[in-house]
């Protein structure tokens, strides 16, 4: 698309907004702030004003585009189906082109481009994290020793311990199925959070796949999915990363692609379409996108649920935005959880409302994202369950932070971890019987 075409597409979307205000009852940011500026219709209005030349791409306009979780709730609820999320990304991209990225983001995204350097940086970061963070005595994470607002660190904020041994270093590139006959090969796209922050659910994914008869390949050349970059308006870095991943994925033979990160999955399945505009790899991506499944979808479709063992857990489930609205995944994890013998599942209120993390949103607007998260935590605790299960590490990090700060006894687990524990329970029982 050239600039004129792009503008026409944006105009076409903006004009669909009737300004009815339905977004007021659904936008988590609006509900926390009670300010018209944060509603979807106002962001569309801002875009219209920019297009009509009523206002420049001022820092004020940029801030209005920034203050959005990209949770897609407005789009899902909008009568006219206005894709406000896409408009906001367009707005951010235009503002970045006009005003530039913030220095912290610029540095971070440049780092993302150099896969090996990024990897080294995060590993080194993990080694030296104790200089910046202090570990909590209960092992639930760490808090910053000093305030680094540029890096989105708030002294209240509790981050997970970064691993010194990332997921992709723990596992070989090829892992054979544990069954005598292989059903096929699954390509596991790990993403950064599972690789550096939460490797255990990543290991659980591999274990689920191999015990169900699937060979696994984890391409070494995969890198960040690009979501943090293109949602921040750095389309160029976003495209660079997307292309790198498409090359890495298409280089390996596979029957399915599995993700265990809501944002990676949504990016690979849908979001790349918008950033790969004019790219020679567009058709390759289209082929790839049809094979992408979240781990919960894959388990429901291709794994044996009858082999899930007894798990005496009391759980509730939180819908990550990028799973429920990004990949249309919401019934699958519930169905799996409910099929685990002995597991008690209670639905929480507003399970599909955003937890407030929103990637870099929680770094820039920490207190606001905490306020949004507090509602989620209240709903979690109201269920009286012991575990919150979810399929997104970013949600997990933000929710865990909140739970720790309020000394809650509720623990957070990835859907894949619960599934794998249930398989473990069954094989332990079998083992005993033998």
């Amino acid at each position, binding site marked *: 698309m050239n600039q004129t075409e792009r503008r026409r597409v944006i105009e076409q979307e903006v*004009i669909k907004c*009737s*300004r009815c*205000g339905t977004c007021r009852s659904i936008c988590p940011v609006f509900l926390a702030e009670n300010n*018209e500026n944060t509603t979807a219709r106002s962001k569309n209005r801002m875009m219209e004003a920019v297009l009509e030349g009523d*206002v420049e791409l001022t820092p004020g*306009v940029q801030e209005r585009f920034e203050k959005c979780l990209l949770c897609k709730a407005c789009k899902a609820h909008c*009568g006219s*189906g206005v894709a406000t999320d896409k408009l906001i990304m367009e707005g951010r991209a235009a503002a970045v082109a006009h005003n530039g990225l913030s220095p912290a983001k610029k540095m971070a995204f440049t780092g993302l481009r150099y896969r090996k350097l990024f990897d080294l940086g995060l590993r080194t970061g993990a080694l030296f994290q104790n200089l910046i963070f202090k570990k909590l005595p209960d092992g639930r994470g760490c808090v910053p020793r000093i305030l680094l607002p540029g890096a989105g660190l708030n002294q209240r904020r509790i981050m997970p311990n970064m691993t010194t041994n990332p997921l992709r270093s723990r596992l070989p590139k090829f892992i054979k199925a544990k069954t005598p006959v292989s059903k096929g090969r699954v390509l596991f796209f790990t993403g950064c959070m599972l690789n550096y922050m939460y490797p255990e659910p990543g290991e659980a994914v591999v274990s689920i796949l191999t015990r169900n008869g699937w060979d696994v390949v984890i391409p070494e050349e995969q890198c960040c999915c690009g979501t943090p970059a293109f949602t921040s308006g750095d389309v160029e870095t976003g495209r660079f990363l997307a292309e790198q991943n498409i090359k890495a994925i298409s280089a390996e033979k596979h029957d399915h692609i599995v993700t265990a990160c809501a944002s990676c999955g949504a990016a690979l399945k849908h979001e790349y379409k918008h950033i790969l505009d004019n790219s020679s790899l567009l058709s390759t991506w289209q082929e790839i996108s049809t094979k992408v499944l979240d781990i919960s979808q894959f388990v429901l479709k291709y794994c044996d649920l009858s082999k899930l063992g007894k798990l005496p857990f009391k759980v509730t489930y939180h819908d990550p935005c990028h799973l429920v609205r990004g990949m249309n995944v919401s019934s699958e994890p519930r169905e799996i959880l409910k099929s685990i013998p002995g597991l008690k599942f209670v639905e929480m209120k507003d399970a599909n409302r955003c937890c407030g993390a929103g990637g870099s949103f929680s770094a820039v607007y920490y207190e606001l994202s905490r306020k949004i998260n507090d509602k989620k935590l209240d709903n979690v605790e109201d269920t009286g369950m012991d575990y919150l299960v979810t399929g997104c590490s970013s949600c997990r990090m933000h929710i865990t932070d909140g739970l720790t700060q309020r000394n809650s006894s509720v623990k957070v687990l990835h859907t894949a971890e619960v599934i794998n524990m249930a398989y473990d329970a069954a094989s332990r029982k079998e083992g005993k019987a033998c």
Partner: protein
Amino acid sequence: MLKPDVIKELSAVVGADHVMTANEDMIIYSNDATMFNAKPEAIVQPGSRDEVVEIVKIADRHHLPVTCRGAGTCLSGGPIPLKGGIVLEMTRMNRILKVDPVNKVAVVEPGVIAFALTTAANKVGLLYPPDPSSLKESTLGGNVSECAGGPKGVKYGITRNFVLGVEAVLSDGSIVKTGNEVDGDMAGPDWTMLFTGSEGTLGVIISITLRLVPIPAVKKTMMAIYDRLEDAAKTVSVTMASGIIPTTLEIMDNLSIVSVENYLKIGLPVKAGGLLLIEVDGVESTVEEDAKRVSEICKKCGASEVKMAKTPAEAEELWLARRSINPAFGQVAPCKFAEDATVPRSLVPVLVEKVLEIQKKYDVPIFICGHAGDGNMHPTIMFDKRNKEQKERAEKALHEVHIVTLELGGTLSGEHGIGFAKAPYLRAETGLAGYKLGQEIKKAVDPTGILNPGKMFFYEGELH
């Protein structure tokens, strides 16, 4: 732009966080749910009645226009600050002060969302019936000011039938209290009614006393399908004449049916000329009997099929079609004139015929739907504002809809208000004497004219 001194004064009252003056804010607050816009000079968010009084006094001293705003879901331009000045955003004042199950009244601040009151009333076994489609977003202050309606209006009436009293800040900063919690207060004229539907032109409402009613024991929902829209319209007047008062009597034309079906794929009869969504409520024995009789009337008037919901889930399915008309508008064209032309219910069939003629004459898509049971129709004219010629045709069609409505002895506004959008036609409805009286009343209550200027009786454009 306001002088820095004035901004300082405003900030001293509500705090700097609740005064907005950036150009970007002015653009955002220049709109409601209509296509019109005008920028304010400042947005002030008062948190208490005392703050409202102080802000109004400052505005009075500097002779600044004050335009109240709730959720900004207005469909007639009510919260658009035509003359600049201050937009008073009332949403921080959102406390339900009282729900009294014995006397069946509620007292609320103006920023309470209508749905919050509905929920609070339900908890004590009561019902607050007005149910505009913006129920979950719009504020009660706005509902009272614009006199909002909704599908339940057929049986229960619209907002004005539930307002027992208001407290309002007048333009000099004094507080007037009208009505009280006694349902049947007649000490003098109905001053409360004067404020209901006054669209913020007489005072800033700071508290509202509302009547609640018992929740009906049971309800029955049905859908009648017609080959001809005219037959559906005829059913409305025949039903009302039969003595049965349904809770809801909603009409949908073929365009509405097809658009919703395209959007939702729920198996609606796309070949039907029109359909009615009918609900009756009350005690079990009467409801069964009423539902049976209504169903017979539908068939007698030409309905090819009447579907009766057997479970609440089935009722919800039938409702889905009606609720989804608004979402489906966007499929036909991006812009719309969402009207609320209301005629005596016996004339609904005539209005439908006339609107069909207008649609043909100007060749613009018009959704014909609405709360037919109380004559409150929503002919919604669709167009693309970027297409000048089409927009002109839409405007001409809109003009004729207004004229036809008035000719049928109807009203310009069944529930959306007059504001700015329908002000050019107000004199045609009230007559010259009525229009003058409207002006005189406004002048007497707001002598300096700072409250929502340029609206209703003070429209400055050409009058029809």
